[in-house]
């Protein structure tokens, strides 16, 4: 690993100031950053430690919302009773992130801000792709098993975060701190696609950090669920995942369905959502919702299986919520 300086930030403001240096990156649990650095994916001259910022690891109810500090560990979110009760999709997701060791170190902020897992992006020696300053995407005509079936544009890497998918269905917002102060961004706007900027996955500038995630009152206590399809029972990133939030039972008033691992951002299955409004979860309705969720999919050479996977995941999630 190349030399880098490691600085402890005592506060959010200090972290923001320290992050404005060249090739500075924030570290919390380091479960993604250290891999990025060791594989030399992105130049890193300065690492700014956020773990020394006190008071950002809370999970609390405030102003009717469920608010989680960016430094809350995934393991703590997974074990939290209030999250399990009020926003079960997030509990499901947290439990399925990586492995126990990673959940013990990894934070919510880090999970949301992580870089993509595309095997070309992560292969510095043999692939010179868009996300690392090159001018090519190997997945378009190459090995595309992991890649996007929705909204790929120049780059086809998928959004890998399970918590992001769950939070998208929950309609959450993310509080970002930067040199200009603080701003709150909805999850679906926090993630940007390659059509907007393929060098970043999120709106975060180099000197901005996530400080908090807020789940709105409209989602709390409503039935929600997250399920994930991955090669193995642990450690793997989702090949496809779905988070569902239903309001109204047994007659659905509204639904939010977000798909993970199949697009560069959490992908809302809006046709399926509209279809479900005003319906009951019968077998036929569930079947049709699954079909609609995959509408508009544009598979590449080796990710066609994701189309059926999405349909199956949505049907499976709705069946569990119905029963």
């Amino acid at each position, binding site marked *: 690993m190349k030399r880098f300086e490691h600085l402890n930030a005592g506060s959010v403001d200090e972290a923001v100031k320290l992050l404005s240096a060249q090739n500075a990156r924030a570290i919390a649990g380091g479960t993604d950053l250290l891999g990025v650095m060791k594989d030399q994916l992105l130049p890193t001259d300065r690492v700014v430690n956020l773990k020394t910022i006190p008071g950002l690891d809370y999970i609390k109810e405030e102003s009717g919302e469920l608010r989680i500090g960016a430094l809350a560990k995934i393991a703590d979110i997974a074990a939290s009773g209030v999250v399990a009760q009020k926003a079960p999709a997030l509990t499901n997701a947290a439990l399925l992130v990586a492995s126990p060791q990673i959940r013990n170190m990894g934070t919510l902020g880090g999970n949301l801000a992580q870089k993509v897992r595309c095997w070309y992006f992560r292969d510095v020696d043999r692939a010179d792709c868009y996300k690392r300053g090159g*001018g*090519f995407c190997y997945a*378009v005509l190459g090995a595309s098993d992991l890649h996007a079936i929705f909204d790929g*544009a120049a780059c086809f890497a998928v959004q890998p975060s399970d918590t992001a998918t769950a939070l998208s269905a929950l309609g959450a917002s993310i509080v970002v701190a930067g040199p200009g102060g603080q701003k709150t961004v909805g999850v679906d706007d926090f993630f940007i696609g*390659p059509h907007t900027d*393929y060098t970043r996955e999120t709106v975060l500038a180099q000197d901005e950090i996530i400080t908090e995630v807020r789940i709105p009152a409209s989602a709390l206590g409503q039935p929600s669920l997250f399920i994930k399809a991955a090669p193995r029972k642990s450690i793997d990133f989702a090949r496809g995942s779905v988070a569902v939030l239903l309001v109204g039972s047994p007659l659905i008033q509204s639904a939010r369905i977000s798909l993970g691992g199949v697009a560069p951002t959490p992908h809302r299955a809006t046709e399926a959502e509209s279809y479900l409004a005003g319906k009951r979860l019968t077998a036929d309705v569930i079947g049709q919702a699954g079909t609609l969720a995959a509408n*508009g999919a544009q*598979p590449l050479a080796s990710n066609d299986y994701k189309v059926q996977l999405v349909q199956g995941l949505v049907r499976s999630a709705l069946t569990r919520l119905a029963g």
Partner: protein
Amino acid sequence: MADSENTPQDAPPGAPQGDEPLSRRRLVVGGIAAVGAAAVAATAFSRAANAVTAQEISDRVVSADPSLCVGCLACEVNCSTWHASVGRSAVARIRILTDNTVKLNTQLAASLPKRAGFTPQTCKQCYTPWCLPNCPTEGLQIDPQTGDRFIDETQCIACGKCEVDCPVEFKGTLAYKAQAISSKRVMYDSVKNVYAKCDLCIGREGGPICVERCPVNAAIKAGYIKSDHLALDLKPSTEAQWKQLA
């Protein structure tokens, strides 16, 4: 000034009216020069010089073979990114539309069977540059070396006359997010308040970035895909070529 009876808008795209608007322009310019307003004449004459040499076709226009397009949008994204990086409008000047009538090339269809048909569209670098005559500033220009019809965005005052006069549209559904599009091939950018069109990446070493970055082009050049022509290529914009472009 009776410039309105036979404006380029009336000319149907497939049946150009020759260079009537330019002939009229030459008459107008000649008239002003005759009055003797030297400075005005100098400016008008340089516009006329452009207008006269507008007879020259552009030696290049971006030309696509839809049967080789996999809709990856690398062209759109690179177009937008490069133009923004040199301070121009970030509007993508090449757009990919979905097109179910297009059958993908056999080799591509074998590996990408579920990928719908696509048609790339850009400014057609019209052999008669309809957009140019009514531009009130030095915005719309023709490069004297290449015939490239381009907009100098620093001069553009966003009056929209070029858009009105452009005879070609993007019409249909974009591959990106299945958005409907109905606009001319010269488009307004509300962020920079200018009009933008394919300018063949004028000023870029290596020429148009879309042609350079198309992954199907790369595969054809490397021999992985067998084809005697590229997916996205540059051709001279003759009248015959113009008719063939999407």
